Structure formats: C-alpha cells, structure tokens
C-alpha cells in the first residue's frame, strides 16, 4: 500500500469519510454473500489515494452511514441484495434523487434501519451527499457462515473495477 506523507494531507478524521468521494461497502461478512460489499471495499483499500477516495466498510445497522459519509460530496455504495434476479446480477441504481426500489432488499434492510431507510432518513433531514450511487449485487445465500457463493465471487472482480472507475469519475 502506498503510504501518503501525512504532512501533505489536509487534517481529516479518517473515521468520517475524509475524501470528497467515498466507496462504502455494506454488509456482514459472517452471512456468506452479505459480505460481498465489505470484501469489494476491502479489495480497493490500498489501491486508491485515501485523500482522493475514502474506502469505508460499514458493518451493523446502516444508520451509522449518516455520520460516516458526513463530509463526502459523493458516495458509491456496494451491498448484497435479494430481488429474485439470478445470483451475481449487478443492479446499478442512482439514489441521488429517488429511493432505492422497495422490492430490492439490501442485506441491511433486514436490520432495524436498512440502507434504503438510511438514505431516505438522510434525504429527509438534509444529510444526503450530493451524489449517491448504489451497486447491488444479487446474493444467493445469507445464512450464517463465511465465504461468498460462486456466482457472486465470479462478478466481484469486474464490479470492483467498475466501482473504482465510477468513484474516480466522481472525484475528477
């Protein structure tokens, strides 16, 4: 991982989405495919300049996102979803002006405040970043256990590149 000289970076709190653009992986790594977003985010860490693009892994309930993306002008969110599409299908949704589809269950929507609710809550109180892009990868299994299913693993590499290009485009 290329270490940037700390003195050359503006003073920023690493926990609070320091860069203008953030890539956020959401999920639970002990729920099989629910860990897809986290794994993708983890694979990008070290490939990006943290002063340009913040990489955030968000486990647990999604409300914490409101704090973590506080300083970001644009966020790219990656999460596992269940909509009935074949496993490995990638849904690309621009949530900047509209909610996530209600029938697209993100993994965290099974929690108290899911990704959809967190985005809408932020919108209602004016805490939504100016651009919100969501990549939902259709999962196959969400039971307890680690490791991604084959269809999800098969698309993760290409999806990571697409997410990275998208984030770079937003930060340009």
């Amino acid at each position, binding site marked *: 991982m290329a270490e940037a000289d700390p003195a050359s970076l503006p003073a920023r709190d690493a*926990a609070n989405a320091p860069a203008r653009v953030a890539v956020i992986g959401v999920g*639970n*790594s*002990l*729920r099989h495919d629910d860990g897809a977003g986290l794994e993708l985010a983890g694979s990008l860490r070290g490939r990006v300049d943290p002063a340009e693009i913040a990489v955030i892994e*968000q*486990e*647990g*309930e999604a*409300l*914490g996102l*409101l*704090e973590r993306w506080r300083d970001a002008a644009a966020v790219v969110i990656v999460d596992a979803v269940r909509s009935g599409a074949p496993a490995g299908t990638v849904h690309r949704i621009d949530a900047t002006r509209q909610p996530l589809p209600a029938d697209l269950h993100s993994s965290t929507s*099974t*929690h*108290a*405040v899911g990704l959809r*609710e967190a985005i*809408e*809550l932020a919108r*209602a*109180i004016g805490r939504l970043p100016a651009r919100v892009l969501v990549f939902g990868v259709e999962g196959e299994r*969400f*039971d*307890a*256990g680690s490791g991604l299913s084959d269809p999800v693993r098969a698309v993760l590499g290409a999806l990571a590149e697409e997410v990275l290009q998208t984030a770079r485009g937003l930060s340009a």
Partner: protein
Amino acid sequence: MSGAGEGGERTRVIRTDYLARVEGEGAMYVKLDGREVTDVKLRIYEPPRFFEALLRGRAFTEAPDITARICGICPVAYQMSSVRAMEDACGVAIDSGPLRDLRRLLYCGEWIESHSLHVYMLHAPDFLGYAGAVEMARDHREIVEQGLQMKKAGNALMAAVGGREVHPINVRVGGFYRAPAPGELRALHDPLERALETALATVRWTATLPFPDVERAPELVALSEPGAYPIDRGAIRSDGGLEIPPAAFDEHFVEEHVEHSNALHARLRERGTYLTGPLARYALASQELRPLAAEAALAAGLGAVCRNPFQSIVVRAVELVQACDEALAIIDSYEQPEAPAVEVIPRRAVGHGATEAPRGLLYHRYEIDEDGTILDARIVPPTSQNQLAIEQDLRTVVEGGLDLPEDQLKLRCEQAIRNHDPCISCATHFLTLTLDRG
C-alpha cells in the same frame, strides 16, 4: 404483507410476514376463534448455533472477537459476557478498579448507541403515528437529530475504549489490549455532557407520550449488585425471590425447542415466563440509579416498578441518563491502569458469564481445556429469553383490542413486539412475524 381477513366469519388470522423496525426480520402469527385468542406465535428462525459451533476448537482468547460478530447492535454485550465467562473459568475476577471501570464505560457506550437507536428511530414513530423514522423525520426533524447526536456520543465512547465504533477490537480476556490515555477520555466529556442534557429532555418528552393502559406480570429477571445499576456483573435476581450466581443458570432456567421457531424458548423451571431487559433492571435496581436518573424517573411518573411494556421507552430514556451520567463519572475520575490487562492462565474448567445487553440478560457458558481450547460453548441471548413474554404480551394486546380496526390491531401487535426491542439478529437474522385473523 398482510393476510388479514382470511377464513370465515368466526375465525380470523392476523399475520405480518415482515416485521419492520426490529433488529432482524420477524414473523408474527395470531389466530382468533370468535373473541378468543387460540394461538400466538412469534417465529424466530435461527439460533446462534453457528457461532457456538465456530467457537469449539478455538482458543479461549478468541471468544470475545468471535462472539462480538453475532450482533451488529450489541457486540460489547457479547464480548463482556464472554470475557467474564473465560475469566470465571480461569479463576480471575475483575470486579473493581480501572479495568472494570473501563468495561462499564465501554458498555455505557453500547447502551447509549443501542437505546438511542431504539428510542428515537424505532419506538418513537409508534407513539407519534408514523410508519417509520423516515416519515417521522419529515415532520419531526429534531427528534431524528437528537437521536443522531446521542448515537454519536455513544459511538465516540465505543471508538475511544473499544478501538472502533462497530465490533470493538480492543477487548481481551483479562482486560484490554490498550488502556486509553486520560486525555483521550477527557475529550469525550463535553459531548457526553450534551448527550446527558438530551437524555434528560428525552425522559421528559417520552413521559408525555400516549400509552395504552396495559399491565403485564411476567417474573422480572436482572443482574443485581449492591451499589451499582446492573450492567456488567452481579447475581441473577428476580422479583419472585430468585437469587443465584450466573453459574447456577442451568439449574433454574431451561431452553426448549418449539415447533414454530428455530430459536429456543427459555423459561424459569417450574415457574414459567420471565422477562429481562429495561423493565426488569428498573424494577429490581431502580434504587441503584444515580441521583440524576432517579430524579428524572420520579419526575416522569415512573413508580418503583413499571409493568407496562409500552412505557419501556421511558425506562430506556432513564437508562440513557444513567449511562451518560455514569460514563461522565468514570471519565472524570479515570486514572490509567498500570497494565491494560491482568494475566489469565487457562486451566481445564467451565466458566459462566452474564451481563446486561441493552435488551436484556446475555448468558455465556464455556468449557475449556487445560491449554485454553474451547471444548463447548453455549450462548443464551436476551431475545430468546424474552420470547415467551413477548408472545404473552401479544395475546393480551389482541384480547384487549378485538374491536379495533384490522390495521390498528395489527399495528398494536407490532408495537407490542417492538416494546421489547428484540434483537432478532442475535437469536436469528431472517425472522418473519405473522398475525393472523382466519
């Protein structure tokens, strides 16, 4: 999804296949024959057996980090019950001093985070007549902002003591990997002062909410320790006269499989349904509240015991005051310990640990080998302990609301479940709740 109105005139079934605003997915099923409730089921699909199996064969020192991952809402509770159980097995007790203070401080952070999520985002919409926090936020932005501010204070505590905000990594058997410097904790003073003011205002506000007149009578069970509000240790006590060390849990509590749920239902042997959580803690230990919290409870009209589960929102607000005030006291008197942990040498033994997760008693039991290898693990989460009490609440609510319109009765049932802040992801992840008028 609702299947209301199924069946004939006499029987009806009320069901909700997706239960919103609980920590997981739930299904509720209530069947009525005329005006008689004939069946009540809260369905839970998955016990923490995966984690119990995962723990077997691992080192005793790994338990806090593995069990922390069972729940994204209460990881500290899992860590604290597991370290207490391992220390118990190894003949070590951290019952006083700065290490215990730091554990209570971390636990206060989790209470603040979890209770503020529930009070402001999950429970408040029930009383203000909104479908959820998003709808409520459009009209009551200040409530959501208060919740976020409180949650942030809890997050900061978790980050300072636990190493990060979610799934703390600084907890170990015997103490911590690193004890925070006094200056790091002093930085939390002002945000916590503000959180305390918000918590006090929240007690006043919740006391004004409209509560249905419901009184429930399960045996109330909580940890108990003279001189401290129950959080991180103590004997297991009940208002029915039970008083046992955590090691005697199995002699008095039994878990049973029931057909409609993968989770085990816990009950008190020969006594039946019991309830853990804020109402139980308050009933058994309100005399141990710090003065600010006790005054707030009194001003809110809470007596020495509150048996209306709808009023648990007031009790949670009182516990928010308690947690903020205690955290401030710990921070203000904190002296960095000489070592961040005491040495814990494994031996072949069985250990028990019980602590108070925000939503109730969390019991862990481990058997370890002489080299510290975990031979057996058992975890009894608060939600499976409260399940029978929640089902009985549902029955009471339906019996008292037979003349309500369908949607209102269904909502009342969902509220009856939310009253207990079930962390269904502890007992299961994908839960379905069904209420059924056939």
